[in-house]
């Protein structure tokens, strides 16, 4: 365990930026913008994943999270820069993750600032007939989408929701069921006409209620205390949260079918659910900066998908159709975990 943590924190998890997905829109295609885009793509911080045909396509890519940073170059970028010596580029940032947004902005400005003169010279050298008044200047303007005031609470509220629900549902459920085994009451419950799986389902109901109350408190606190707006549909926020609660409850049941002491249940919940939820769900560390293998590991953490969905619905305020894939993934988790625990379930000791 300590070895894993040291390695994870030392190498794998970093708050540094890596491979941030960038989408660009260039209204007029020219050699200067292309070179600049190549420069950005070459850096380890950014990967150009999308060359938008129009501004709407770029916005759409933003909405379904295929890109995290958007760059919109000015109309007639090259001719403007050659005549006036200055041109502008707009940088769109995703305010749902403040860490990434601020760092991305910083690095982008840096790259643009350092490479613009070099590029200008290169272009002039390659084609001496072109007139380019040196020095040139590119003026980036940034706009923070979804979170214009740059509040960090916007970032952590979905994360905290994911964490609380994981904690309450998975840990408390598994511990409460395993406690029956430990105390021997399970033995008596088994020797009764009640279907044992019903007993376990019944044990989860109070935790479902508690989680629903927790959810309500968290959302109310987020809205009224932290002033996080629920920009999207509240109904879907609640619906998807309830779905996630069921996923977590089923995880708790699964654990309870596998272990036989409360300590084991707590350990497994903490190590297999809580830690990965904290570290790998993208709440503290950007998933893109992780080594590929950890990115794959993060796929199997339900909280990751839930937090993504909450960010999309609460902060970005997109309609549910943009995160229907996340809902489908959560639902698949629910089905898979429930069937696994039914399969693993023994109605004997």
């Amino acid at each position, binding site marked *: 365990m300590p070895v894993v943590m040291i390695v994870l924190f030392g190498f794998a998890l970093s708050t540094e930026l890596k491979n941030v997905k960038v989408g660009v829109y260039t209204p007029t295609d020219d050699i200067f913008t292309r070179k600049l885009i190549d420069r950005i793509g070459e850096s380890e911080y950014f990967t150009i994943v999308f060359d938008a045909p129009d501004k709407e396509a770029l916005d759409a890519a933003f909405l379904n999270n295929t890109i995290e940073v958007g760059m919109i170059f000015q109309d007639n970028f090259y001719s403007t820069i050659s005549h006036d010596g200055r041109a502008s580029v707009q940088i769109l940032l995703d305010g749902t993750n403040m860490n990434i947004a601020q760092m991305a902005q910083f690095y982008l400005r840096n790259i643009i600032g350092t490479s613009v003169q070099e590029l200008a010279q290169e272009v002039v050298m390659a084609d001496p007939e072109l007139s380019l008044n040196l020095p040139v200047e590119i003026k980036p303007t940034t706009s923070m989408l979804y979170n214009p005031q740059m509040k960090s609470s916007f970032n952590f509220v979905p994360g905290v929701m994911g964490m609380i629900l994981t904690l309450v549902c998975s840990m408390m459920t598994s511990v409460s069921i395993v406690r029956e085994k430990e105390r021997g*009451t399970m*033995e*008596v*419950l088994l*020797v*009764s*006409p009640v279907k044992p799986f019903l007993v376990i389902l019944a044990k989860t109901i109070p935790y479902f209620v508690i989680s629903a109350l927790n959810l309500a408190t968290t959302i109310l606190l987020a809205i009224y205390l932290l002033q996080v707006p629920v920009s999207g549909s509240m109904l879907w926020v609640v619906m998807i949260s309830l779905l996630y609660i069921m996923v977590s409850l089923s995880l708790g049941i699964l654990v309870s079918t596998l272990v036989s002491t409360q300590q084991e249940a707590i350990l497994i919940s903490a190590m297999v659910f809580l830690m990965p939820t904290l570290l790998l769900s993208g709440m503290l560390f950007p998933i893109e900066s992780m080594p590929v293998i950890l990115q794959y590991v993060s796929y199997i953490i339900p909280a990751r998908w839930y937090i993504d969905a909450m960010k999309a619905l609460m902060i970005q305020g997109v309609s549910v159709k943009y995160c229907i894939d996340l809902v489908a993934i959560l639902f698949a988790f629910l089905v898979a975990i429930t069937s696994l625990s039914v399969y693993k379930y023994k109605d*004997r000791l």
Partner: protein
Amino acid sequence: MMFRVEVDNIKKNYGATEALRGVSMRVSEGEIFGVIGPDGAGKTSLFRILTTLILPDGGSAKVMGKDIVADYKQIRPIVGYMPGRFSLYQDLSVEENIDFFATLFGTTLQENYSLVEEIYSQIEPFRKRKAGALSGGMKQKLALCCALIHRPQVLFLDEPTTGVDPVSRKEFWYMLRRLKEQGLAIIVSTPYMDEATLCDRIALIRGGKFLKTETPQQIIADFDHPLFAVKASSMSPLLRQIRQIPQVLSCFAFGDTHHIVLKDKGIDSLQGKELLSTELERRGFTDVHINDIAPNIEDCYMYLETLNS
């Protein structure tokens, strides 16, 4: 005639450990069947197999004519089981525990009140108390009450009197005999040899095997070796020395005396006494008191254990 419980050559292994090495038994209606043996002899494994909680590794068993492996769902509603460990909800009150188990079996306390009346009336004064705060004897009465709440056909009691004071033990056995009169088949395990005579039939279990299955009276009657109790001032060298006498089959410490079983069944009590006193005198014991005694179940158990080892 149909037996309430039929067990044939049941085996159970935990890894390399053989917990049960082929046990067989029959229990009829209105019978108290005692499984007597020390801890680790396989009693709990046998009970868990018969209550369908674990699967046997060999052999077969039927409860009320239903197979414990194939028909386990039909067995569960008709047996009452009281595990060796107190297995009720400690943080619920007496009343709540009874209500809970009644609901679990789809019945109410009132419905089967006649069966549990006698037991319930003893715990009724404490019905608001938390189960965890009851005395050992009261806990067992409550557990028995909960195990009986659905009027089972067969009652399995795993060491119900372990850790219970002598008075409560006596009361508990009295209640079992009253239940038996109502036609229940009761299978009870105990490490206490003195409780054996309270059963109708007993099986002496050791190392996963039944040494003998009989009525306690018959087991005692079958003991046909001369038996003596010996006492002296220095007891432990005495035990070692007695075991070296060639005519002695076995000798065990038994409270403040040693019980000696002689090999030769034909020796009468006078001859036996004389033989032992001369042998012991020759070994330097001068203050020995020798009495011939009637065997109890523990003597029989020790004797059978010696024969089987």
